[in-house]
């Protein structure tokens, strides 16, 4: 029988991590994601699967605990919210540079600075354009439901180990705090990734030692490493684009929106269609790699595209890069933790795309 539960997004991702066979979680409390660690501590996964949960002294320590554990081939994760993610960026750059797999979760809130604790999508640039120093990319998944918060724990770890790269789930306070029905799958075994080609498990007799580092003082070698990373990112771009389409078959106008905004847009589509405005939605599931090709193909049939984000307009830049000129593209968003209503989204589609 299906195991159904009513869960918060933050709880679902924690349960997902346990069931995906995670070895460890290291985190630091911050609203609106504290339920992740609270749930894990209450569940005592060390008794269920042997998974380790540790409350670190800071986000900086947490990400470096992840870095240490990941260097030994363990399946580990951390979670935070916007200001805490900023603190983690150095460590994330090291993880990407050293090619270590891990799962990161940002339950984003309004900024800049201490900002608010309400939902926001203003960390898009930080998430998909690097965030930390150096040329690197994270694989970025954007869950849009509590079910996806659960499911992407599995997908995230899979992709992280497939590409030996950090995977970031970019969620927000709405998806993290809301409760929905979640269908849980069965517990996966917790198995350590004993690949001696890169993991640190202690140098076996008669074998070479392993070193995990992102440092190479020889610039020509560092460039070769960068070329290797770029090739990896290219392969990832080819294979891992994920997105979802709603009502696009006959649409004249297209919303592009991810996460909580995509949910709001679906309602706006319903209202719009009841008024005779044919709107569709492309929901990027991977924000990096961005679904540029499918978007470009759809765009040629559209009278206009509205990028809907809870930000000043960040993803809209990728929408424009994907589509190029020739299609009318606008952005609508609220900021600082304000969530647009479906009616506001529809009103702005009319104002920005139809009235012009």
């Amino acid at each position, binding site marked *: 029988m299906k195991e*159904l539960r*009513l869960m918060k997004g933050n709880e679902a991702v924690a349960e997902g991590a346990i069931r995906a066979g995670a070895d460890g979680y290291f985190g630091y409390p911050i*609203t*609106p994601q504290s339920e992740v660690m609270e749930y894990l501590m209450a569940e005592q996964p060390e008794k269920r699967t042997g998974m380790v949960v540790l409350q670190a002294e800071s986000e900086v320590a947490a990400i470096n605990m992840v870095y240490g554990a990941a260097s030994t081939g363990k399946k580990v994760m951390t979670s935070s919210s916007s200001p805490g993610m900023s603190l983690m960026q150095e460590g994330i750059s090291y993880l990407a540079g050293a090619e270590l797999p891990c799962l990161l979760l940002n339950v984003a809130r309004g900024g800049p600075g201490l900002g608010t*604790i*309400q939902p926001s999508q203003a960390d898009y640039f930080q998430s998909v354009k690097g965030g930390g120093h150096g040329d690197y990319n994270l694989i970025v998944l954007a869950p849009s439901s509590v079910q996806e918060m659960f499911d992407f724990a599995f997908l995230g770890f899979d992709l992280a180990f497939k590409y030996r790269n950090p995977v970031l789930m970019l969620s927000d*306070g*709405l998806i993290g*705090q*809301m*409760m*929905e*029905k979640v269908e849980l799958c069965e517990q996966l075994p917790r198995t350590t990734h004993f690949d001696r080609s890169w993991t640190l498990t202690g140098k076996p007799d008669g074998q070479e030692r392993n070193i995990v580092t992102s440092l190479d003082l020889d610039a020509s070698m560092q460039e070769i490493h960068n070329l290797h990373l770029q090739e990896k990112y290219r392969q990832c771009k080819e294979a891992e684009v994920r997105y979802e389409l709603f009502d696009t078959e006959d649409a004249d106008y297209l919303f592009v929106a991810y996460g*909580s905004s995509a*949910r*709001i847009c*679906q*309602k*706006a*589509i*319903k209202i719009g269609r009841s008024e005779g405005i044919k709107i569709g939605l492309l929901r990027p599931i991977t924000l990096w790699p961005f679904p540029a090709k499918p978007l470009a193909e759809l765009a040629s049939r559209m009278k206009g595209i509205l990028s809907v984000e809870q930000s000043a307009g960040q993803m809209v830049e990728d929408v424009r890069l994907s589509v190029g000129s020739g299609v009318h593209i606008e952005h609508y968003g609220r900021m600082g933790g304000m*969530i647009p*209503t*479906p*009616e506001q989204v529809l009103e702005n589609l009319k104002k920005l795309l139809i009235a012009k």
Partner: protein
Amino acid sequence: MTEEIIIAGFGGQGVLSMGKILAYSAIMQNQEVSWFPSYGPEMRGGTANVTVILSDERISSPILHVYDTAILLNQQSLDKFEDSVKPGGVLLYDKNGLIRMPERTDIHIYRVDAADASAKMESTKAFNMIVMGGYLKIKPIVQIENVYKGLEKSIPARYSHLLELNKKAIAIGQEIVTKER
């Protein structure tokens, strides 16, 4: 069927848990649900609200600005959300502590004196389930046995003795709810 509800009141009135029990009940009868609370410092001693959507279909936006039903349990909530009820929709309120009553004429207005009733029961904890009983009388969208199941899921094992009290509260709520217009 889709029912879009806002429940709002003081933190501590059991607003969020009432929403949660309602959501659980709907899951028990294979419906889709979403539950989105106000969260953070505003909840601590201030007002709390939760948007609950029950539907036979996949739920789109968990955030709304108009509702089929508004359950408003203090003055601030009434002031804030009375205008958000869809024309023809339902407003359920408790008159306790109100200085301004609901005024709209294009919606159905019901009153449940849950604060008084819970005081009579000598259990303020029963307050939210009295309201729940009132709501279910107006809109029996979830079956009562599923509400009991939802209660069992929501009440921590150490409070299991409260189950009967809550069942009684639901019955009282169903009894005392009155239509005003």
